[in-house]
């Protein structure tokens, strides 16, 4: 599997061209709802700008995915070696690379549930991936019996890497993806449901925000042309939220989510909403 992965990497540069062609069967079926039809007209006008932006983003996604595979392998190796403490240490940082590009991964059908499903997201028999192992590490306090899940997880990560260059990324996917990343935070991270056993929710929180921020940074020049006030407002609110998150940094990571008080969680959530609202208007750059 690994080799498969490597192949595409080599082609990375060329992959830019794929944006139009790579219709992976299930590709962005769920992440680009209404946009396509209506964007067509206006995209032609500034198509060049978006091509550059799309390639910037694809490069970012591929980079993140490379790191994701690398760090996931360290994690799964620790699990297979029976090194409980090491595995727990590597768990959240490895996931962060995935969380930054989650909308892209979600465009790949089964990969997202295979990698990231929580306990009740899928039928018990189908449950695998990070959270399956998370439960063993934190709740059962053992790596025993997780070897198979570890192998599967690494394969799934590699498969994601192999497929990511073929995803049909367009500006609309980026715009909606940025908001989706924040919606992810709003609906599962803020509530502490994402990392039920490890309470490492803030790693995911921060990674989702970073992923959205990356998209914003790439599209910022275009947005500034269309609506400078909005561009400024979004920038300020990213800064506010990041500052808020920084308060919970601990070492290389973040504090256990259970350490947050209710009012701290509420403030994070409100700052997130304050950002996501204007961010959801970034679609202005797509025209009507």
């Amino acid at each position, binding site marked *: 599997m690994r080799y498969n992965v490597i192949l595409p990497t080599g082609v990375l540069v060329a992959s830019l061209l794929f944006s139009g062609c790579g219709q992976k069967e299930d590709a962005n079926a769920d992440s680009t709802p*209404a*946009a396509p*039809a209506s964007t067509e007209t206006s995209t032609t006008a500034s198509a060049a700008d978006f091509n550059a932006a799309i390639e910037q983003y694809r490069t970012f996604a591929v980079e993140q995915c490379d790191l994701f595979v690398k760090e996931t392998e360290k994690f799964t190796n620790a699990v297979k070696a029976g090194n409980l403490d090491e595995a727990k240490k590597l768990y959240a940082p490895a996931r962060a690379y995935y969380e930054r590009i989650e909308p892209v991964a979600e465009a790949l059908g089964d990969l997202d549930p295979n990698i990231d499903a929580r306990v009740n997201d899928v039928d018990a028999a189908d449950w695998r991936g990070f959270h399956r192992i998370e439960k063993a590490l934190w709740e059962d306090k053992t790596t025993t019996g997780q070897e198979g899940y570890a192998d599967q997880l690494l394969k799934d990560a590699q498969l994601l890497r192999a497929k990511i260059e073929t995803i049909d990324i367009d500006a609309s996917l980026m715009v909606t993806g940025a908001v989706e990343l924040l919606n992810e935070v709003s609906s599962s991270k803020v509530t502490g449901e994402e990392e039920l056993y490890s309470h490492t929710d803030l790693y995911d929180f921060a990674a989702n925000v970073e992923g959205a921020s990356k998209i914003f940074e790439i599209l910022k020049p275009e947005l500034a042309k269309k609506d400078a006030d909005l561009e400024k407002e979004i920038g300020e609110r990213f800064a506010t939220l990041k500052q808020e998150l920084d308060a919970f940094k601990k070492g290389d990571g973040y504090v256990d989510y259970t350490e947050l008080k209710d009012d701290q969680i509420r403030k994070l959530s409100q700052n997130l*909403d*304050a950002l996501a609202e204007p961010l*959801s208007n970034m679609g*202005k750059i797509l*025209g*009507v």
Partner: protein
Amino acid sequence: MSDHNQNSNDNSILKKPMTRRDVLRLAGSGGLGLLLGGSTFGLFAAQNNRKTKAANATGTTDNQVPFYGQHQAGIITPAQNFICFAAFDVTASGSSSLQKLFRTWTAAAAAMAEGKQVGEESTNHNLPPVDTGESVGLNPSRLTITFGAGPSLFDDRFGLSGKRPPSFKDLPAFNGEQLEPQWCGGDIGVQVCADDMQVAFHAVRNLARMARGTAVLRWVQEGFQRSTQADPSGSTPRNLLGFKDGTANPAVTSAQDMNKVVWAQGSDGAAWMGGGSYMAVRRIRMRIEVWDRSSLKDQEDTFGRYRGSGAPLGAKNEFDAVDLNAKDEKGNPHIPADSHVALAKGDGSIQILRRSYSYSGGMDLKTGQLDAGLLFISYQRDLFKQFVTMQQKLAKSDRLNEYTLHVGSAVFACFPGVSNGGYIGDTLF
């Protein structure tokens, strides 16, 4: 219990719980007197609602209450069926952010009062709709949105510290209250009332959405009263204790009375508040389960009125005068001196305009009991001379305090009305 005392005051206010009779009377009297005392509270509100509806001073037409005018709508406007009250905290700093929010809210509130959507409908499929949409196709349902500033808005964040009216500050502690922070305070209070709950909710939702990044919700409470559909006659409504409530409000049709009781005058100490009004909000939990196992006699003695008719104890009809000196054949007073109506009546020198609603917060998870009560709201020209004076008396002695508990509290300086082209609070900046 201590809350006894406290509550009593509140109760009266709130509630309406005056005895039926009291209520009735008050109601009947048209605000006469019962409540007079201070209690104008309870009764008033109820009555107002209904009564004033027909001939209303605010010029209600059909389903529409004008947003612009000398005074804000939603104060002397006959009470609508529902309320959705929202308190906000401002998170942005600087008065320009605040003014921008007020301008945005003004345009939205004026549009919604006419049954329109907020903002221009977008045809861009790549953007979220400007209005959230749940009120599309609904009439305005007499929607009113009333804005006020809390004492905390006058700290140093917005350069308004010199503008705080001298008599406007947080309420003193009252006997027996058990305030919970999640139901208290707020930089800004927004009272949204409508004859349709969805219309009211839509307004709060959209105002909160527009405020994102500038202000956040602090607390929200929905409330209701019996609807006009359920009681087309508009008789005095009953509170959740089963008693008629809200009768003796002052006559909102009398500009003279309103200027005396409700509207702050420019000469009162803060020129920018001339034509505005001070609002007191109390979330008063009713101990429903306890009340329900009290004997009818206890209940009636608590209010000082008969439950069925609302007549004062010893009298026959709802609007009969409350005679605190009336004695039964044994020489005991018909109306106990510590009954709600007796205390509320007082000497009739203090009045307030009540505009309360019942609320239900579902179930109390700790006790398994119903979380229900009164969202007491009153408007007055001076919080301390009127509301506080009245409430202190009730908090000390009212029999109703045994059955009620004040858990939430806030006060807001509600701005004068907005003229077309202006914005809420523009006299403040």
